[in-house]
């Protein structure tokens, strides 16, 4: 008789052979809740692949390289790709170093339980919960209106630069929180060993703590990048073009960064709003 069978006999003698109907029903209910959630995800992905697949197999080349057009069959997404690409660049260039540095300060430098650290910590948690449209207002006020001459002289400040800066700020709290979690997971022994041989705090952080936490930090930053690329609401407020536009299909044209722009999430929004035209992606 195996251990499984023994456990079974013990269980049966305790429960008197009765089945726990309420318990089983409860377990099934929560299982169904979990499976429903997962199935919704599957339906969503299948739905997108199904509809998007047709466009991609029919005319993959010019869909990706074409400009926006009033004819749904001919319009492409190249300007959106370009806008999204540059927003990603801004996020990586601004939010990542700033966020990781802030997390390093909070975890490695700030004295435990100090007032400053606590204020900053609570503040960051609140920033992470601020709705994304509100960040759009921030971008509108500062990058579009106040700094319009710098961010986009020919476009009233409604440029990729403004959008990129806004989204970099939007994801900063996420980068900080995830990086701080990764740093917290570094064993104390590593730091103590470093201090023990006479390294300064920065040397310990730079050569031991950060490399150890790198995979965790990377995961967090990739999530933050995904968030910034998918975000549309702040872009609407910052003024991404929702109509048609010409040009703007050269990826590396740096001067064009200060001109009008659009991005993939905006294109989806615009197309979804036009009856009978959607069905992409």
């Amino acid at each position: 008789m195996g251990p499984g069978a023994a456990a079974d006999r013990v269980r049966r003698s305790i429960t008197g052979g009765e089945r726990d109907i309420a318990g089983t029903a409860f377990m099934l209910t929560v299982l169904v809740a979990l499976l429903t959630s997962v199935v919704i995800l599957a339906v969503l992905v299948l739905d997108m692949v199904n509809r998007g697949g047709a466009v991609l197999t029919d005319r993959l080349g010019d869909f990706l390289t074409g400009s926006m057009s009033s004819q749904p069959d001919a319009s492409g997404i190249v300007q959106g790709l370009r806008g999204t690409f540059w927003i990603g660049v801004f996020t990586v260039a601004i939010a990542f170093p700033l966020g990781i540095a802030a997390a390093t300060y909070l975890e490695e430098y700030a004295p435990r339980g100090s007032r400053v650290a606590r204020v900053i910590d609570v503040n960051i948690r609140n920033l992470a919960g601020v709705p994304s449209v509100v960040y759009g207002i921030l971008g509108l006020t500062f990058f579009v209106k106040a700094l319009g001459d710098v961010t986009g002289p020919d476009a009233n400040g409604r440029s990729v630069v403004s959008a990129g800066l806004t989204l970099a700020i939007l994801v900063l709290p996420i980068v900080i929180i995830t990086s701080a979690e990764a740093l917290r997971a570094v064993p104390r022994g590593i730091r103590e060993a470093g201090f023990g041989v006479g390294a300064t705090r920065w040397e310990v952080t730079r050569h031991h703590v950060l490399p150890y936490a790198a995979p965790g930090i990377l995961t967090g930053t990739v999530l933050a990048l995904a968030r910034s690329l998918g975000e549309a609401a702040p872009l609407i407020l910052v003024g991404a073009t929702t109509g048609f536009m010409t040009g703007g299909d050269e990826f590396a044209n740096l001067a064009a960064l200060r001109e009008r722009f659009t991005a993939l999430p905006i294109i989806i929004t615009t197309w979804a709003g036009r009856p009978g035209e959607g069905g992409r992606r």
Partner: protein
Amino acid sequence: MELTGRTRITVSDLRGDPRRTRTEKLVRYALFAAAATSIVISAAIVLSLAGETWTFVSQVELASLWTDGWFPRRGMYDVKTIVAGSVLVSAVAMAVAVPLGLGAAIYLAEYASPRVRKVLKPTLEILAGIPSVVLGFFALSFISPQIVQRFFTDATAFSMAAAGIGVGILVVPLMATISEDALRSVPVALREASTGIGARKITTTVRVVIPAAVSGLVAAFIVAVSRAIGETMVVFIAAGATGGALFSLDVFGPGQTMTAAMASQAAGTDQVRGEALTFQSLFFVGMLLFLFTFALNLSADHFVRRVRQAY
């Protein structure tokens, strides 16, 4: 160097290399500056909202804040329309997210084998990464015709119900992961004690684990509500009423939330135009939204702290 004799170590030897000390100091300031940016950002948000909000509040006619609908371009700023819209959409969203999210959390924390958990939890977390525009499009193209209009034949193609279900799906992973963390932070000893005095699994879960985790669960609920109120794109795409909306409590009709009202004012136009105060009303709604979610987030933080203190 003389190896045989005793080397005397003086205080100046222990002081360390001045260059290293200087680097250390500089790095410390730089990192602190990075951390302090978050405070600057918060201040900037409040500042950017406050100026125009004050212009709006001080100049608007009070009567126009209580009319038949929200049509900012025509000088009708009925606040109750968009607040009711936000509340309705969030209510529908929570009706979807609470049973699904809580159920999923209970299964993952109490019933799932480690192997099942390892597969399903990340899968659920992927849902959290879906851009909200995609979900908005899904709500409009799938949820609205296939689900809402099938069961409620008088529902319009753009409806707050469809938007609410979309938002609900969006917050399920959030609800599930925070609740699961709360449930798992309940010490195993409590479960063992309960089982030890002969309680069934369901009794342990419902009468011991859930009450012990309740403040974490409340926090999950509040965070999810806050997220649902702040969600823009799903509502903007799927609830219709882009120009404005009449006051309505009908979830099967089109409607507008605070967030969508902001987005639709700015969408498609180069400048936010209209009646004299249209532009300022955008900031007023932003301020309302900011205060709502700020209060919710603070109270959620309070509940989370209570869990941490308890165990």
